[in-house]
């Protein structure tokens, strides 16, 4: 045989992670906090962002990048709530955003005029967990219509996230859903997860979310640029 073996032993995600590191550095230099919103489809990410833009869009100079498999529906909805460009990424079948797509999207945003960037990922509780986009943190959104065991079924997403938003709490009176059990399940896979309990429809719980976002932006503003 004349077969030659070339040892590689390199992580397949290495290129994405290099790009993500470059995105993170670019955002850091521009003083922008980036949050990557991840969830299953229909958890209310876009509704949460609509309400957040209404309340804080101008105050925190919020920019948004949305990812969808098809359509720009989410970007169109959000564009009605802000004067800023909402950059849509249509993945054309891919089940997640990657760092290259975010890097490209940043080229369309005015980072000098941005302090908070939301990246609304493709609705999918599996694949986006594996892709670093250069964000400050992942925020997993799940809703009370989804069942308390979501964190146990999709542990990687809850492990990779620093924050969790339990959304649609206005529906709780109509459902057999235990908030305590959902939180306990999430903390079994990620004990450090910080929770927010919101209804993007009624506004319940949103003040704590807004306070958190203001605090995130303030924290970056006090770090001198390197």
């Amino acid at each position: 045989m004349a077969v030659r073996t070339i040892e590689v032993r390199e992580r397949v995600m290495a290129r994405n992670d290099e790009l993500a590191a470059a995105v993170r550095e670019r955002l850091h230099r521009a003083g922008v906090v980036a949050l990557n919103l991840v969830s299953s489809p229909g958890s209310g990410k876009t509704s949460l962002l609509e309400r957040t833009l209404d309340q804080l869009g101008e105050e925190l100079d919020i920019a948004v990048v949305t990812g969808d498999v098809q359509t720009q529906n989410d970007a169109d909805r959000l564009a009605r709530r802000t004067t800023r460009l909402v950059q849509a990424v249509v993945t054309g079948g891919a089940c997640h955003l990657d760092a290259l797509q975010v890097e490209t999207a940043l080229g369309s945003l005015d980072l000098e005029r941005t302090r908070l960037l939301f990246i609304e990922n493709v609705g999918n509780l599996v694949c986006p967990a594996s892709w670093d986009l250069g964000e400050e943190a992942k925020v997993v959104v799940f809703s009370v219509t989804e069942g308390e065991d979501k964190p146990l079924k999709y542990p990687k997403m809850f492990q990779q996230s620093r924050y969790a938003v339990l959304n649609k709490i206005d529906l709780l009176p109509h459902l057999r859903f235990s908030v305590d059990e959902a939180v306990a399940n999430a903390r079994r896979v990620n004990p450090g997860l910080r929770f927010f309990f919101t209804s993007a429809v009624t506004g319940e719980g949103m003040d704590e979310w807004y306070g958190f976002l203001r605090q995130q932006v303030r924290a970056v503003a006090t770090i001198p640029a390197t």
Partner: protein
Amino acid sequence: MHELSIALEVCRMAEERLEPEELPLLVSVGLEVGEEAGLEPASLQFCLEALLAAPPFSGARPVITQLPGDALRLAYLEVDDGRPDD
């Protein structure tokens, strides 16, 4: 679910490491996939077989080794370049 993305990246890595004339001579691609890597090995195998059957490749065989943990590595490339073994 994102096995095709991973398979495309594996092919890109192979193309980066080999000379263009070596790509049709690639006979196997060794991958290490952790059980918690979020990938279905059979689906990844299918995607890689499909991509490696088309130019610039000519039917290299993906060899997936499953490991504990969440590793996802391109372990090796095997090229049959007709040269005698050293």
